[in-house]
């Protein structure tokens, strides 16, 4: 067995898992607290990448790109909440689906109008572009940075959710909305903040991935589905669930793509294994979701006291 390859794959899985967590943490809170299904959450991921890319192109500073990107996406998220989402919390889920699907079309086209149809590459500063070698193992610095950033945000969210008053309200809101209302909290402002923070998290994920894949139109529309799966598996409304489920799914997806053919080849002829493996690994995440739903419909880590 090639240990270096395994470690690289583990790192890739971890990276995917953390990106998924960034996307899913906002989603799960928005579902849990507002009971609002936001298909266009992936648009924040895309918009974040474009904002960041633009600033980097102007200033040459990746750090500034991230900072302004975060603020930009926060504002976009707040605007969406203020002008659109807010009007829909009381209507049925079908309306959420339609409007946020419309928002995807709007965001995708606006990006097309502003930045053009071709993607936008984001150059990395030299320090991040290198590699770190530990023994025979060579790892790209930037991937380590993504992992560190993901863990950092997770820690930040953890403190925010468990140690602050805002976090207390968020937790209470995810399991019992009426209770928060009864506390006399300005529920509109709470929703606005949660929505905008969620959007920024998604935007951050987009900014982090863009230097590797480049920013492109519709880049959020595929990954958002896996983020949904993360939310379901983790338990709606649970940031902790989103974290663990994100990691589990990131690792399963990455590892099954690289190792499933070898595993299958243990029991069936190699040529069948090589045909079947890609298909099965494509299904892996969804099979996991189905299994979790069958045995724990409320997800792995439902928020305490959830209905």
């Amino acid at each position, binding site marked *: 067995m090639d240990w270096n390859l395994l470690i690289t794959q583990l790192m890739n899985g971890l990276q995917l898992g953390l990106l998924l967590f960034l996307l899913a943490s906002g989603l799960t809170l928005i*579902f849990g607290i507002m*009971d609002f*299904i936001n*298909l266009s959450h992936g648009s924040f991921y895309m918009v974040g990448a474009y904002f960041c890319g633009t600033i980097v192109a102007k200033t040459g500073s990746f750090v500034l790109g991230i900072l302004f990107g975060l603020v930009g996406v926060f504002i976009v998220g707040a605007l969406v909440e203020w002008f*659109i989402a807010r*009007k*829909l919390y009381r*209507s049925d*889920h*079908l*309306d959420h*689906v*339609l*409007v946020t*699907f*419309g*928002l*995807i*079309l*709007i965001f*995708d*086209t*606006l990006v*097309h*109008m502003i930045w053009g149809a071709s993607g936008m590459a984001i150059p990395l500063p030299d320090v991040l572009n290198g590699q770190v070698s530990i023994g025979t193992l060579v790892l790209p610095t930037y991937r380590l940075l993504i992992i560190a950033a993901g863990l950092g945000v997770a820690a930040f969210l953890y403190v925010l959710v468990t140690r602050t008053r805002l976090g207390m309200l968020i937790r209470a809101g995810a399991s019992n909305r009426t209770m928060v209302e009864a506390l006399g909290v300005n529920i509109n402002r709470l929703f606005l903040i949660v929505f905008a923070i969620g959007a920024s998290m998604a935007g951050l994920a987009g900014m982090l991935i863009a230097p590797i894949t480049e920013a492109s139109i519709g880049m959020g*529309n595929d990954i958002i*589905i896996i983020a*949904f*799966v993360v*939310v*379901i598996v983790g338990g*709606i409304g649970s940031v902790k669930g989103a974290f663990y489920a994100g990691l589990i799914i990131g690792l399963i997806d990455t590892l099954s793509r690289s190792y499933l053919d070898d595993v299958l080849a243990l029991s069936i002829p190699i040529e069948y294994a090589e*045909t079947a493996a*890609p*298909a099965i*690994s*494509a*299904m892996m*995440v*969804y099979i996991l*979701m*189905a299994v979790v*739903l*069958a045995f724990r*419909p409320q997800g792995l880590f439902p928020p305490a006291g959830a209905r």
Partner: protein
Amino acid sequence: MQLLSTRRGLFYTALLVFLAIAPWVFQWIDQPFYLDLLSRALILGIAAVSLNLILGYGGMVSLGHAAYIGIGAYCVGIPAYYDFYSGWLHIGLALSVSAVFALITGAICLRTKGVYFIMITMAFSQMVYYTFLSLEEYGADDGLVIYLRSEFPTWLSMDGAFSLYYWILGVLLLSLYFVHRLIHARFGRVIVGAKFNELRLQSLGVNTYRYRLTCYVISAMICSLAGVLLGNFTSFISPEMMGWTRSGELIFMVIMGGVSTVLGPLLGTISFVLLEEWLAAITVYWHLIFGVLLVVLVLYGKGGLDGLLGLMDRGKKSS
């Protein structure tokens, strides 16, 4: 429906008459392209009718219906790849594969409600999408070319644009009529009742889960027929036709036409395809207009186009 006594009835009668003679009209004005457009609209119409059954009548918001179009299309494409062209085989395969897939995934989805249901239907359709995307043998993302249309006895042949069009129209009308019967029969009453108040239905002795699952399977089977026809129509199929945004568009069409009315979804698809064609000719940014339209439609325009026709009738009565 009183076909001739209201404006809405009159409109739909005129529409159906037009659909019946459309190929000849288009031939007469020498615009074969219009027939293509209409064929595509009617295929999507079949899918929309099937989606309307669960979404409009049953209140089950599935965001994964395009998967069944894909399944239907690949049930033509894959046998054709191995030189099996029998149309009955294609149809039988499409119906049974979609039924089995809908039964398994529906059994899981329907245990859940609300946002869960929406996301899970979406996730399962995405699973189908990625599965076909990973199947190198069948072209992966390059898709498959279908060289010959499904074979039927001569009098039922699909060859030629006219015959295929009438096939499509036939399947569409049959589905419409079937859904219409279904909705007013015992089964449909239970489905509609459960949409409004599932607990009440259960308290009346109805095992709503069982009926909803059946409804979900029926809808998937009808939708797979749209896939079979689409495969034959485009003679090229790829996973792209079942991406989740396709499912989103399908919902859009149903809503635009007016949910839980029999002919609304058909109206929705025809308008959608025409609008798409027209806007795309004007600007590359036509998606923006669609997006804005969707947002406005939901925030301000309940009832869809069919509702608009109904409004015209009410206006007439009150004046």
